[in-house]
C-alpha cells in the first residue's frame, strides 16, 4: 500500500519521444485508470512504473522511494498482463505461490495467502489444475490472484479484461471493483475501454499521443472534458463536435442556420461540442439545429438517430426516447441543453471555459 508519484516521466526510443512528460500523484488506495486509444503510450507508462521499460527522463516514486533504477522485483509491485502470462507448466496453486516462494515467505504463510485469494476469487476447485485446463475467465482470475497474494504496494493491470467476452467482462469488472473496495490496494489500470475506465476509476488519465490530456474524476472528464480529444473519446455515442463561427452571442452553424448560444466565450471560429444526450426536440418557434436523419438505431430503452445538419455534410447523433417514431429521411429540429455546451479552441483543441 503506497503512494505513487510520477514526476515529468518521459520515454523515448532512439531519440523519438513517445511519452511527453507526465506528472501525477496517485494517493494511497486510489484506483487510477489510464485510458486512451491504442498507441497512445498508456501501456508504456504502466510498464515504466512496473520497471519493465526504462524511464528516459523524470522520476517514478513508489511509497516514497524513487524506483527508476530498481528491478521490478525491488519495486514492491504486482502486475496482471493482458494475456495473463500464467506459467503453463505450473498448477494454479504454484502459479499464485511462485512469487511468494521466491520472496522466501514461510510455507504456512504462503498457503494461507493462496487460500485466501482462492476463496476471494472462487478458485478453490481449480487449485491443482494447469492453466490450459481453465477457461479464459478462470485464467484471468488466476492472474489476479497471483498479483493479489503478493500484497504489493501497487497493483498494476494492463488491459486485464480485453481477452474476455462481453458478458464475462462486465462480471469481472464488478469483481475487480469489489476487490479494490475490500483490499484498498493502490491500483493503476490500463484500458482502452471507456466503460471500464468510467466505472472503475477514482480518477482517470486520458492519454493521447503520449500526452496526458486530462487527469480528473470520471464525472469531471465527462462533464468538463479538457480538450476536444477527451470530449470525443469519453462518452458513447461520441460527442458531436463541429466548427461554428461565433459573433455577438450567436453561432452560425454549418449549413447556415444561426443559433443564439448563451455563454459563447468569444467570437470567431470555435469548435462546439454537444453530447447526443443533451439534444432535445425543439419547441415550436425555438431557435434550433435542423437535422435530416439518415438512420435510427433502436436499442429498446433508447434510440439513436444518425443524421446530418441540414444543408451540410456535418454528421450529428441524437439520443431519442426508445418509443420515438422518427425514421430515416425525417427532418427534426433539436435544441441543445444550455447547461451542457462545450467550446474548444479551433486550433489547439483545448477547452474554452464559457
Amino acid at each position: 500500500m503506497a503512494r505513487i508519484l510520477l514526476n515529468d516521466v518521459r520515454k523515448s526510443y532512439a531519440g523519438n519521444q513517445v511519452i511527453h512528460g507526465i506528472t501525477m500523484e496517485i494517493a494511497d488506495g486510489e484506483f487510477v485508470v489510464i485510458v486512451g486509444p491504442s498507441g497512445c503510450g498508456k501501456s508504456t507508462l504502466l510498464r515504466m512504473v512496473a520497471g519493465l521499460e526504462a524511464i528516459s527522463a523524470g522520476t517514478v516514486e513508489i511509497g516514497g522511494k524513487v524506483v527508476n533504477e530498481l528491478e521490478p522485483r525491488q519495486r514492491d509491485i504486482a502486475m496482471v498482463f493482458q494475456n495473463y502470462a500464467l506459467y503453463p507448466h505450473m498448477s494454479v496453486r504454484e502459479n499464485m505461490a511462485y512469487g511468494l516462494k521466491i520472496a522466501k515467505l514461510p510455507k504456512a504463510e504462503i498457503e494461507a495467502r493462496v487460500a485466501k485469494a482462492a476463496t476471494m476469487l472462487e478458485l478453490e476447485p481449480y487449485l491443482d489444475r494447469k492453466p490450459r485446463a481453465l477457461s479464459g475467465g478462470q485464467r484471468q482470475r488466476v492472474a489476479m490472484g497471483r498479483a493479489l497474494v503478493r500484497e504489493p504496494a501497487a497493483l498494476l493491470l494492463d488491459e486485464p479484461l480485453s481477452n474476455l467476452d462481453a458478458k464475462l467482462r462486465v462480471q469481472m469488472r464488478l469483481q475487480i471493483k469489489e476487490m479494490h473496495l475490500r483490499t484498498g490496494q493502490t491500483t493503476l489500470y490500463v484500458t482502452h475501454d471507456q466503460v471500464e475506465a468510467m466505472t472503475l476509476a477514482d480518477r482517470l488519465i486520458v492519454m493521447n499521443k503520449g500526452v496526458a490530456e486530462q487527469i480528473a474524476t470520471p464525472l469531471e472528464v465527462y462533464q468538463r472534458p479538457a480538450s476536444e480529444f477527451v470530449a470525443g473519446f469519453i462518452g458513447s455515442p461520441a460527442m458531436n463536435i463541429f466548427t461554428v463561427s461565433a459573433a455577438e452571442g450567436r453561432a452560425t452553424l454549418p449549413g447556415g442556420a444561426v443559433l443564439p448560444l448563451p455563454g459563447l466565450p468569444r467570437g470567431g471560429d470555435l469548435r462546439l461540442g454537444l453530447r447526443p444526450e443533451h439534444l432535445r426536440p425543439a419547441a415550436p418557434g425555438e431557435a434550433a439545429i435542423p437535422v435530416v436523419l439518415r438512420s435510427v438505431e433502436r436499442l429498446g430503452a433508447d434510440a439513436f438517430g444518425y443524421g446530418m445538419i441540414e444543408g451540410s455534410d456535418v454528421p450529428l447523433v441524437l439520443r431519442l426516447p426508445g418509443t420515438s417514431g422518427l425514421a430515416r429521411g425525417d427532418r427534426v429540429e433539436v435544441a441543445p441543453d444550455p447547461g451542457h455546451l462545450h467550446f474548444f479552441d479551433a486550433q489547439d483543441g483545448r477547452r474554452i471555459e464559457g
Partner: protein
Amino acid sequence: MAEPSPLAARGAGRLLAHLWMVLGVIVVAFPVYYVFVASTHSVQTILRPPLPLLPGPEAARNYSDAFSGGISRIGGVSLWRLLANTTIVAMGIALGKIAISMASAYAIVFFRFPLRMACFWLIFITLMLPVEVRIQPTYKVMVDLGLIDTYPGLILPLIASATATLLFRQFFMTIPDELLEAARVDGAGPWRFFKDILWPLSLTNVAAIFVIQFIYGWTQYLWPLLVTNSNEMNTIVIALKKMISFADADTPWNLVMVTSVLAILPPILVVVLMQRWFVKGLVETEK
C-alpha cells in the same frame, strides 16, 4: 479401429497405400533383420551363400561367446568395455551439447549485450564448417592438451553445436515476452527464470535434441579413430571396423554380426524410450 482416420482411403486405393507402406518398412527393416539373422549362425554358414532367411541355432553360443571373451581375442578389449566407452562418449556428447547450446541460446535470446548479433552469427557460421575441415587443428589442440586416448579428448571437440544452439534459439523465441516479464515481476532473476520456467518448458525439446545427439555421438567414426590409439579407448563402431579389417576368411563374421546388433540396440532403445516425450511435446502445444 473404431474411428477411421480421416486419411483412410477406400478399396483399391487403400490396398495400394498399404502395400506401398509395407514395402517401405521392408526396405528399411530388412538389412537390420538380416544382421540379426546372421548373428545367429556359425561362421561357416555365413560364408557359404546364400545366407538363410531365418534365424539359426547358434544364437546362444554366438552371444555368450561375444560377451565372455570372443571379442577380446580379436580386438583386445571386452565387449563390455566397448559398450561402456561408447555409452560414456555418446552421453557426454549429447549432454555436453545440450548444456552448451542451451546456455548460448539463452544468452543470445534473453540478454542484451554488445556484439550479441555478432556472437549469434559467429555460432551460425560454424554450421558451415564440418568437423572434417577443422580436424587437423583440433587434433593438434588435443595433442597439446594431452587428451589423446582420454574421454575428454573423445567428447570435448564434438560438443559445440550450432544446430542445437539454433534449435534452442528458435524455441526460446516462441516463449512470450509476458512470461519473462511476469517472472521478473514475481522476483525471478535470470537463473531462477531458467531453472523454474524455461527448463521445464524446454524439456520436450531437450529430449528431442538428446535423442538426435546421442545417436550422433554413438555413431561417430572419424574423430574416435583419430584420437584413440589404445584399444582400451575404442568405441564400438571403431572396434567393429577393426574386427573386419582382416582377410575375409579370417573374419569371425558371426561375432561381427553380434557386435553390430549390440551397436544398433542402444540407439534404438533411446529412440523407443524417448518417443513418449516426442508425443507429449506434440500434444502440449500451448505455451
